[in-house]
């Protein structure tokens, strides 16, 4: 399986990029000990014109490179935690709906459908605006809008697995329903969930950056979206302030998508690439 993943050139590039971003995020305090908010030079310093400030400075004279490296923390943290929370909502709901069927299925699916009809970015905006923007509320809002596809996927997988022979065998052996679900059925649905989770982290990073672009970021945490949002009005005179953070988002999200596709090909070799769109 690992060999299949490693033979996928795109996936390996994705892992390398992601490791680099994680490395930068972890060493942010060592690389830029003054933090992302410190004013270190004159404002609007053009990139590549002064040693020590390769990416220039912003409207207040803050180092753009420091902002990027510290911003990586917020993107990765929010992306990862919100995905975990979304899985924590979606997996049990989908598993119960798929395994028990009947009214539990009906109820859970109506609930999921309702959340899928709501425009998810608009709901995220409303949630963050009402709960006040903090890292917690942003993470929670992204999780709340991202779980429905997980629930649907898990439900479909559980329904496919629960009629297999080894599940019948477990039932004959007298295992309780809950035990069968957690020890026999769910472990066999893990690989598509992993693939979906890696793509969800990418989407969550895009969502977080979009929220902070609109000014709904945590005011105490430097983030890529905030940097672009703050530079939006000066785009005509200082292109680099919006350009570099955007490239950072693009590259990180691209890396995660490549990893997701690589995992999909490695874990589900018998499936076509249907689920990647």
């Amino acid at each position, binding site marked *: 399986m690992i060999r299949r993943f490693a033979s996928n050139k795109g996936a390996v590039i994705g892992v390398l990029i992601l490791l680099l971003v994680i490395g930068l995020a972890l060493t942010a305090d060592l690389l830029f000990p003054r933090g992302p908010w410190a004013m270190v030079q004159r404002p609007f310093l053009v990139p590549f014109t002064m040693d020590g400030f390769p990416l220039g400075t912003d409207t207040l004279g803050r180092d753009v490179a420091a902002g990027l490296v510290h911003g990586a923390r917020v993107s990765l943290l929010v992306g990862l935690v919100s995905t975990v929370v979304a899985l924590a909502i979606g997996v049990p709901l989908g598993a119960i709906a798929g395994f028990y069927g009947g009214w539990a299925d009906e109820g859970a699916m109506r609930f999921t459908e309702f959340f899928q009809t709501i*425009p998810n970015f608009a709901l995220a905006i409303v949630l963050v605006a009402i709960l006040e923007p903090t890292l917690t509320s942003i993470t929670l809002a992204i999780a709340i809008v991202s779980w429905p596809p997980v629930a649907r996927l898990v439900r479909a997988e559980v329904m496919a697995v629960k009629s297999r022979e080894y599940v019948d065998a477990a039932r004959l052996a007298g295992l309780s329903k809950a035990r069968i679900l957690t020890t026999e059925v769910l472990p066999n649905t893990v690989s598509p969930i992993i693939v979906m989770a890696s793509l969800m982290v990418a989407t969550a990073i895009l969502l977080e950056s979009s929220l902070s672009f609109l000014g709904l970021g945590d005011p105490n945490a430097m983030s890529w979206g905030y940097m*672009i949002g703050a530079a*939006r009005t000066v*785009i005509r005179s200082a292109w680099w302030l919006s350009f570099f953070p955007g490239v950072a988002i*693009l590259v990180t999200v691209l890396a995660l*998508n490549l990893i997701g596709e690589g995992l999909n090909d490695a874990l589900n070799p018998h499936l076509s690439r249907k689920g990647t*769109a």
Partner: protein
Amino acid sequence: MAVLVPVLGRLAKALLTLLAIAVLNFFLIHAAPGDPAVVLAGEAGAADEQMIAQLRERFGLDQPFHVQLGSYVWNIVQLDFGYSFRQGAPVLDLILDRLPATLILTLTAFVISLTLGIILGVAASARVGKASDSLLTTLALLFYATPLYWAALMAVLVFSVELGWLPGFGYETVGANYTGLARVWDVIKHLILPASTLGLFFMAVYMRMTRASMLEVSQMDFVKTARAKGLSGPVIRRRHILRNAILPVVTLAGLQAGQLVGGAVLTETVFAWPGIGRLMFESLAARDYNTILGVFLVSAAMVIVFNILTDLVYRLVDPRIGARA
């Protein structure tokens, strides 16, 4: 007329969904930190004691919880979304004023992205494994990872600041007072950048889906039969493969409608496009919750309309669907 019956069913379901969103909005107002009356008044009205008292009475905020919920939902049913103290107008008027611009923008982006996505997806699948296929797939992968608002900003930078080809903001040239066709052309010029940057991400999604779906259908037996009959490649692709491959793309397009409407908030913010997304952005800074929740409800309604439309398209493309449902 058999086509209409399921649509009526969907309409009933749509109304139920909107009611549920109204209930959700009510709970959100109560989830906000602080007095709900102050929340409803927004930052602008927070100082005025008399107005707060009026609001409290109007929304029955001194009543038991379930009575409050009932009167809130009843107001929404009557299309009374409350008053925006910030903008000094009823929320419904503000939204209706801005809705046409958003409809033009999202519909154009939807049509552009679906058409181009399907055409490019078909082109890529016809050249699978060749250099042009890899180029298209890589481009789709890039667009898929590009933040919408950043693509919009970069487009402004290149096409409007550097090259000066297209206007970078607004809905029409202010003060030009064009009439007739000249005005239409002016709006179209303003529309090109917002619509294409909003559509870029979705074009990538539809292209990947079309390509995958075309390749999958081309493995099926009836395609082999067509080939054995001696039909030419393009005819098989158009008549046999595309017709079957397009169904999942249309389904996906319907599901993505919500994201398109949400994405409009970002595009409209960058281009100062006077739609409901821009209205939402302006209300965010003002903490004008009444307007934010109103826009939220209306955008959900837009998504439902989009879904019903794609459902109709679906039935037209594949008559078998109606019988099955």
